[in-house]
């Protein structure tokens, strides 16, 4: 096909209309039961049907014209040249990284300057800390999914292990956050190995389902083992303090000790920088590990498992290391989460959380650190921003926040169709001759390991 002159397809209006009509008809079938009708419980507990013709015909019109536009665009677009080099974003990735780190590092200062003390609280806590937690989780999962190519659907389990480690140790033995942090990491890594040991011989999809089952088991144990975890009611954990000095308005509080006026901003900013450096540490370790033999083995494993085996790489050990190290960072993040919330309940560790972290890694481009940052800002920041659109509620008749996971799911599907390698899909060679040349991920042929 590529060698012959491609005849530019003419736009066939009749065929396009037919096609759009066909999909609209499919839309009628799909949406008639679930969009046109809504089953609602009336006051007297009887089920009644509500009819919503406006919404229904709106969706159909959207499908019809959307499909027509798609066909029009496909017919008029120049045939795309297969891209050989890196994309624009990828070309600037080296220079984007320090800028990104600088921006994230200055974020609390900037928001303090721009929004004032009271206003900045929301931005730093809801946006900054939240996004950084997911960046850290994304980077942790990135080691497992992005580098080693093992699809882990139960990553939130290690996050839970970290959180409960902090809450239980701090509550029963009075451990401080900094003491709990390494313990949480070690315990999470231990659970990673414990789970990984038997299951890592499984094929990709089986592995995914088993990790999902493991994540759900941890959730259910946390929910039902009331004596140990507090069950569904949750467990309280001490909030983070400044190396032993609590962030309170008391005489021995942070503000009094340093002779400052008390505001809750100090605590938030301290939280922000704690997770900021924890996340940077994760990125640093990942970048260093990538250059070690083990990191190269991970990437080789992702591309072709059979070739790896035949070259004498112990695949089980290699996978296990990826699993344990990824789990460790999940544990760190969980420990931080506990110290930030001051309260932990199993509801924070449901499957949907794992799916969200996975979505961040996938949408960002598996294996790319910058991609994870962009995807977390878009997904987590975006869904926090949806809360700002509450004023739309009377117009769309719904809380915009409810659309959050819908958009995430749609994003995952569309990303797989259009850019399966994610936003940033470079494959940078770790070994090169004279000049480092990054190539587009779409040119990387993959084995079927």
């Amino acid at each position: 096909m590529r060698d012959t002159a491609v005849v530019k397809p003419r736009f066939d209006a009749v065929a396009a209309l037919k096609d759009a009509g066909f999909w609209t008809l499919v839309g009628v079938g799909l949406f008639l039961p679930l969009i046109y009708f809504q089953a609602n419980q009336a006051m007297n507990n009887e089920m009644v049907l509500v009819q919503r013709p406006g919404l229904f015909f709106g969706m159909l019109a959207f499908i019809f014209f959307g499909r027509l536009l798609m066909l029009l665009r496909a017919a008029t677009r120049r045939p795309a040249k297969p891209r050989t080099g890196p994309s624009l974003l990828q070309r600037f990735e080296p220079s984007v990284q320090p800028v990104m780190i600088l921006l994230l590092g200055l974020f609390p200062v900037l928001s303090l300057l721009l929004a004032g003390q009271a206003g900045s609280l929301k931005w730093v806590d809801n946006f900054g800390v939240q996004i950084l937690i997911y960046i850290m989780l994304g980077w942790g999962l990135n080691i497992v999914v992005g580098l080693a190519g093992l699809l882990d659907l139960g990553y939130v389990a290690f996050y839970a292990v970290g959180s409960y480690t902090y809450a239980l140790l701090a509550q029963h033995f009075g451990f401080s956050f900094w003491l709990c942090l390494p313990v949480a990491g070690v315990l999470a890594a231990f659970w990673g190995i414990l789970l990984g040991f038997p299951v890592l011989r499984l094929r990709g999809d089986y592995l995914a389902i088993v990790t999902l089952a493991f994540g759900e088991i941890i959730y259910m144990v946390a929910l039902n083992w009331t004596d140990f975890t507090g069950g569904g009611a949750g467990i309280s954990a001490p909030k983070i303090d400044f190396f032993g000095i609590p962030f309170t308005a008391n005489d021995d509080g942070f503000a009094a000790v340093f002779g400052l006026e008390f505001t809750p901003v100090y605590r938030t900013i301290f939280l922000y920088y704690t997770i900021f450096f924890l996340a940077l540490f994760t990125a640093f370790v990942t970048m260093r590990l990538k250059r070690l033999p083990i990191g190269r083995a991970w990437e080789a494993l992702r591309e072709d498992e059979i070739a790896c085996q035949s070259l004498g790489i112990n695949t089980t050990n290699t996978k296990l290391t990826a699993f344990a190290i990824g789990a460790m960072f999940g544990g760190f993040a969980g420990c931080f989460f506990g110290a930030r919330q001051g309260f932990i309940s199993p509801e924070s560790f449901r499957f949907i959380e794992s799916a969200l972290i996975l979505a961040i890694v996938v949408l960002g481009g598996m294996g790319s650190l910058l991609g994870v940052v962009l995807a977390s800002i878009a997904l987590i920041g975006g869904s926090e921003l949806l809360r700002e659109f509450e004023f739309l509620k009377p117009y769309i008749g719904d809380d915009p926040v409810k659309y959050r996971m819908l958009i995430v799911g749609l994003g995952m599907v569309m990303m797989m169709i259009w850019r399966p390698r994610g936003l940033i899909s470079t494959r940078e060679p770790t070994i090169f001759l004279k000049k480092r040349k990054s190539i587009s991920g779409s040119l990387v042929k993959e084995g079927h390991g």
Partner: protein
Amino acid sequence: MEVFLQQLINGVTLGSIYGLIAIGYTMVFGIIGMVNFAHGDLFMVSAFVALITFLVVTALFGVSSGVIVVALIACLIVGMFIASLYNWAIERIAYRPLRGSFRLAPLISAIGMSILLVNYVQIAQGARNKPTPPMLRGGLTLMESPTGFTVELAYKQILIFVATAILLAVFWYIVSHTSLGRAQRACEQDRRMAALLGVDVDRTISITFIIGAALASVAGVMYLVYYGVVSYNDGFIPGVKAFTAAVLGGIGSLPGAVIGGLLIGVIETMWSAYFSIDYKDVAAFVILIVVLIFMPQGILGKPDVEKV
């Protein structure tokens, strides 16, 4: 003994539902080698479609015993049709373009589709549980013990057994005795060779998704009849359990899926009756992990040999 018998009946009922869902997993896995993660949610969607069909029919014709029978049949037919349409569209839009993509792409796309379906139903139908008016009441008393415990076989359980048995028979006939079934088995063995020999591979895969969806929708209707309530997140746990059933029976094997489903259903009810009801979902997950580790080919499956 009576308690055991009653639990066995309940377990087999539950197992029939799991078995019907499991067939969809096992067929899709057999033919294109992907775990259709959204299959459990499709089951939930079809339960919703059935609920709405039931409400439409009863709203039009009133509630009487004759109408309820008609409504149930309408639920089954409409549910099967709509669920097939959903699965066909999902395959067309979310899975077919990925056939040449990298290994994990279809699974990730399916996970996205699953999240999409759950939230679509949550937004379109609301987050509350949807109870249905009771559809089938009463049952047969099989046995009465001196202590007063009666073993009962409810009419809805009979309906579930009969519907499952009939569908499995029809379905088994299709797979083993028609040209469509032959094409399916050919695609399972070697898709490229089948295409070279004139089998329309795309069409065969589409039909596989449609059959899987139709069976899942029957499971959805049965679920609605049996429990009388459905909610937007009811698809996830039955989906994972049905997948467990498919793996336990040997993925790719149709009788295996049914046997696996029945086993999982019975184990689950026995577990909740004799051990702890809190951990009944844990039971299924533990079985899944243990089976995958020690018996990855399942009861009736073929060992998975990877060719290089």
